[in-house]
């Protein structure tokens, strides 16, 4: 756990001090859904997210994760996640890491833009970040104590087909999820949908924090679709969440999402928030560091 906090603190500190020159981000408000926009080449985005969830029949929890998102090229973004959680009246545990890649196969913009997503997850069963909901994930899965849950380790591969369109300022994104636990478990499926729009489409002539164009609001919906043997909505959980992002001129982005469970298998309430900073020119800075260029 100490390693997790040290790494997270180091990343955020680096974002604040070592790389003071960054650009104002234009980040989407989604926390679960992906749109087709990748990280700009050579840019590193350092992100921290929290999820507070209610738990019927057990203790509420606060799950959190740090993301390091790097634009390797204009068509490839790679990302590392470190996850942890605190279950109230129980304990705080490190729950694992994820390594994801997003690839844009088409050169130009189309009405629907596909992005291919591949992720490897090495996590334990105490994981509660709910970054995606898949298979028969239900609220009662979280009733197991941290001490027990962390003993079970999972290696998973996850694939997503991300489809996204931007029309008249609106973004519409659909993610289809397929994941496979490598310990001989069946394929599981899920979905995430999102729609969002900036509050104003034109930019102001002056820099401002509270201008409407700095706010992007929307809604996302996500849930499980069962597994290979029992595909469908039976015994699955689903959520709907209004979301908002505030892209500050000081290079930071704040996000807030209030999620509501749509059936009895879902957590009744999920509050998520996140803070991120994009560091442009990170790749060049690292390159200069190792090559000794000024």
């Amino acid at each position: 756990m100490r390693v997790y906090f040290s790494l997270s603190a180091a990343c955020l500190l680096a974002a604040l001090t070592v790389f003071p020159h960054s650009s104002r981000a234009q980040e989407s408000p989604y926390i679960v859904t992906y749109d087709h926009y990748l990280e700009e080449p050579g840019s590193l985005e350092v992100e921290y997210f929290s999820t507070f969830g209610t738990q019927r029949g057990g203790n509420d929890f606060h799950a959190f994760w740090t993301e390091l998102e790097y634009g390797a090229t204009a068509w490839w973004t790679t990302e590392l996640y470190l996850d942890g959680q605190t279950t109230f009246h129980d304990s705080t545990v490190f729950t694992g890491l994820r390594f994801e890649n997003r690839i844009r196969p088409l050169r130009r913009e189309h009405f629907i833009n596909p992005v291919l997503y591949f992720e490897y997850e090495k996590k334990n069963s105490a994981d509660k970040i709910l970054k995606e909901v898949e298979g028969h994930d239900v609220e009662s899965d979280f009733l197991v104590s941290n001490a027990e849950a962390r003993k079970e380790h999972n290696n998973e591969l996850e694939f997503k087909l991300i489809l996204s369109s931007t029309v008249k300022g609106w973004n519409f994104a659909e993610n289809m999820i397929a994941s496979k636990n490598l310990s001989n478990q069946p394929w599981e499926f899920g979905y995430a949908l999102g729609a969002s729009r900036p509050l104003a489409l034109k930019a102001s002539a002056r820099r401002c924090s509270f201008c409407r164009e700095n706010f992007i609001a929307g809604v996302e919906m996500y849930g499980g679709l069962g597994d290979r043997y029992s595909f469908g909505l039976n015994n699955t959980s689903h959520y709907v969440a209004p979301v908002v992002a505030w892209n500050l001129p000081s290079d930071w982005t704040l996000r807030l999402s209030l999620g509501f469970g749509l059936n009895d298998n879902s957590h009744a309430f999920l509050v998520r928030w996140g803070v991120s900073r994009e560091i442009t020119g990170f790749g060049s800075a690292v390159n200069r560091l190792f090559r000794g260029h000024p």
Partner: protein
Amino acid sequence: MKESIIALSLMTALLGAPCALAQHEKLAAPNHKADALVYAELARAPDKATAKRNPMEKDPDAVAAGQNLFKQHCSECHGNAGYGTEKAPSLRAEEVQSATPGAIFWVLTNGVVRRGMPVWSKLPEPQRWQIVSFIKSLGAVPKTPDKKRD
């Protein structure tokens, strides 16, 4: 144990590959040649896109707003004054300044993904036109053998 070794190998390969690829792309494309390839994209804009008029043309704030947006999103690669850097070509070049606003808007929207320029359709249409207004306001600078880079 075996799974961990496979996972570790996979992660090392995948973490190393982006850096290697980025470096390869940089070495494989000397600046002037790469610049020409990016400028060539302007000529690939469809006629319909090229013919589009800038709806912000008469907006007195468009250039100032476009300059702010340019600083935020474009200057890292094209330089604060648009003269270009090692990463991206000058926007004061004849090829860009003589292009129609519609063609510049089309390149901005679609990017030149295989040459390192991302798509900017995530910026709403009016904001992309504001950037076009700013780029057109820069004016052309004649080509010299050692072109200025900022």
